[in-house]
């Protein structure tokens, strides 16, 4: 098993009822899991996700996860 931290940004957090903390939450997955598996675990529809960042690096749905990873899913952005 690997233990990772998932953070949903912006609207994703509202849609998928992430607990009220922007620090996200810890979750355990089987070794060899990828970002898409994490989305499935939370029931998140991938077309709602504009960007995936793992440990401050851009990633994609197929990126393999490692123990201790911090995975952030982001929706579309704009300027303000």
């Amino acid at each position: 098993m690997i233990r990772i931290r998932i953070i949903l940004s912006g609207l994703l957090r509202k849609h998928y009822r992430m607990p009220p903390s922007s620090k996200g939450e810890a979750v355990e997955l089987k070794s060899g899991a990828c970002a898409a598996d994490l989305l499935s675990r939370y029931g998140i529809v991938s077309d709602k996700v504009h960007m995936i960042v793992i440990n401050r690096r851009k990633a994609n749905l197929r990126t393999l996860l490692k123990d201790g990873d911090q995975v952030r899913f982001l929706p579309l952005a704009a300027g303000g």
Partner: protein
Amino acid sequence: MNGWMGTVLRVDLTVGRVTKEPLDPLLARNYVGGRGMAVKILLDELKMDCDPLGPDNMLIFINGPLTVTGTLCSGRYMVVTKSPLTGTICSSNSGGYFPAAFKTAGYDVIIFTGKSKKPVYLWVNDDHVELRDAGACWGRDTRETCDIIRRETHKEACVSCIGPAGENLVRYAAIINDGARAAARSGVGAVMGAKGLKAVAIRGTGGVRVADPETLLKSTVIADHIKKADLGIAFAEFGTPLFVDVMNANNIMPTKNFQEGFFEAGDEINGAEIIDRTLVRSKACYGCALNCGRNTRLPEGGKYQGRGDGPEYETCYSLGSNIMVGDLEALTKMNYICNETGLDTMDAGSTISAAMELYEMGRITAGEIGFPLVWGDADAAIQLLYMIASGEGFGREAGMGGRYVAEKYGAPDVFMGSKGQGFAGYHPRGMVGQGLLYATSPEGGNHTTGNTIQPEINGIPEPMDPLSAEGKAEMVIRRQNETAFIEACGVCLFPYMLMEEGTEIIAEFYSAVTGLEHTEDDVRRIGERIFNLEREFNRRLGFDRKDDSLPKRLTHEPHTDGIAEGNVVPLEEMLDSYYRLRGWDSNGVPTGDTLGSLGIF
């Protein structure tokens, strides 16, 4: 006239005289309103070499033909003048409810000239217009001023005013309306203070005539669409601080005076944290479908106390990541202080971040400032904000702006801005088109003359490499022209710049309101005319290629984070293409043919 009210108010503050004159229909047709019409008026009437803080400068309050017409997000007005911060043309844009009162009182433009011997405010109650003594509110903060003036005039009056910062001629003093909306940038509040004008209070009860009301009903359909779209819901839910996450994730959140692009404490100051810790309710401007405003309150028993609005994303950057403050409550307190004293949060932050770097370098000492000024010290930043607004000690120098402070203390390269104005919260090393946009903006570092997030970060309408110069000149020109037209109309940039079909929609609304049929290409051409006229204004003051510059940190120091690691902004390469596509010479001067083809002679 449909859309325009047809009346210009002229206020000569030197002699205390108010006159009304009809709006020139040709001026309206060619330059629309907002910054477009205002720059034309200034070019025709302003003594160009005037001191921005002297009686010869002109201060223009102006709305647009679409303001308060039922058009989507149509509650905006602009303040346009010669900037005391940059020495260029400047146009500062604000929302709230003041713009609606301004227009429905029956006016398109208010032109202030001269200088009053004693502090005054302008009271406009529909047709009735008078200058009144401002003795009771001079020296007061913006909230107190609003209360006093409402008591003296009418409880429904909308008030736009300066605080102590404007009175003390802070070069980035803001004009605050409706308590917390701000025409913040470029020192428009200092021009108001220099004229002895404390406030403009307006009550408007009239209507606006439009040519084709049925087409405008489409506005409600689009509003409904936006409210159901992800981005629209996100705006309402999180406000603009939503973008802290996105900027950080893309490593373009300016941090430590643009030394870095990622702020470790970003998750402490984002839209979600505001909801969890300080949000009272979301707020909307007149006719808005987005509700991006935040009404907030600091928790009882905490170190910082107060209630007000914000912060917006730009403040999360300028007084948060860029000075390394990751304490949401301290950041919120700083935002309140800026709103109450009438300071632009962005240039306040830009100046403080430059001062913090100077302090770290040993160029400026705790003795000169009055206390140590280290990265992340929120209490020191708060103390400095009060000193800036009141003009006390080092605050007087800091009130001259980041460029002044950086030059005075011998390290001009630590000022992160262009043409003397601090940047907005998008790091150009990770989105180089934004760098070109900052460099060529008529008023320097600015986020309202167009931003490049949709094309460079979101890949809309087409994916674009944010690190490459390819295609950037064309994209920036397009964004600048479209933005110029949208702002001239007197509507909010957000929905029209976010929707892929935004330009088509604004052209349709403009045609429906005014009865003047305009296509997308027509409105882009008007935007191009406005942008070139602003360029011509600056050219007459000696601005050219040498001023379309960025700090060496952006063009020569490699980025430290993420996909942009190692990248710099290839400014000169982009400028060459930009000037060529604009029809300007290699020194950035519009050619006679270009101006002529746009109807500028």
